[in-house]
């Protein structure tokens, strides 16, 4: 089972905010099994989706080199269940960004109505974890592309968020290269 809890980014402003969407489907086993008779996306997976949105926003500030992990879920408020057929819009904003981590505010909305509000703290693991690779770089880059991060990613100044060279190099070395995907901005 893949651990992807967002479908794609629709907005990504480096080091500032990101918006991702997650479409809830009755074809997802956990949606059906969580509360028998009342299919819904478990709130814990909404937290995970917000954490993936925020984690990638934080990770991009390190050119995706930093080992960013979710360290703490602070305040978390859920207002209503999220049902099959709904399109959840996850908005995350960086509140504080330091060398050792970040505090991120996350919000889940459906058709403009707030479904959940969550505060997340991420740690950027220090040199004690040097050599620990959380993701295989080429596969990670594929994931970032699949999430449309580089399609919508912009810096605060409005320039495209570029694919870091070290990920491009890893992709080339992996033999998984796809010429359509190797331009600097996508």
């Amino acid at each position, binding site marked *: 089972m893949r651990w992807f809890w967002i479908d794609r980014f629709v907005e990504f402003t480096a080091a500032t905010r990101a918006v991702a969407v997650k479409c809830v489907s009755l074809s997802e086993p956990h949606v059906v099994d969580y509360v028998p008779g009342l299919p819904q996306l478990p709130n814990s997976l909404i937290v995970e989706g917000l954490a993936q949105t925020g984690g990638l926003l934080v990770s991009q500030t390190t050119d995706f080199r930093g080992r960013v992990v979710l*360290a*703490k879920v602070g*305040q978390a408020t859920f207002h209503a269940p999220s049902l099959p057929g709904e399109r959840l819009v996850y908005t995350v904003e960086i*509140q*504080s960004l*330091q*060398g050792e*981590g*970040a*505090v991120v505010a996350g919000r889940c909305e459906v058709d403009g109505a707030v479904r959940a509000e969550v505060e997340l703290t991420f740690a950027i693991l220090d040199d004690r974890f040097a050599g620990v690779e959380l993701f295989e770089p080429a596969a990670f880059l594929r994931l970032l592309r699949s999430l449309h991060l580089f399609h919508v990613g912009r810096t605060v100044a409005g320039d495209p968020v570029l694919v870091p060279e070290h990920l491009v190099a890893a992709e080339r070395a992996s033999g998984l290269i796809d010429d359509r995907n190797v331009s600097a901005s996508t």
Partner: protein
Amino acid sequence: MAPSQEEVFEKVKDALVAALGADEDDVTPEATMVGDLGAESIDFLDIVFKLEKAFNIQIPREELFPDDILTSSTYVTDGRVTAEGLAKLKERMPFADLSGFSKNPLVQDFANLLTVNDLCRYVATKLR
């Protein structure tokens, strides 16, 4: 006008309750952040953020967490902070009560030094 000591304490308490999920009654001026309130290293990031927001101040990390001193071979010998290191810590952290720590200055004990009161005093220095 700078807030009163009580106002500072109340805001610091709110930040600690929110960041640590601590019981309000446990957040006393004498409570230590790590030992009594259960703060872990990542919590300090959250606490600093909440204090910056609550008081509209900037908190440089090294002012509250003098890692550079505590990991320096100039100021630490055999896991103990030297007299020179203690002087440096006092200079860096005038708001903290280092009298107890000074008697047996083991680096490993430093993490549990900071009390709620120290935090309040620190915030007060930033509000002057």
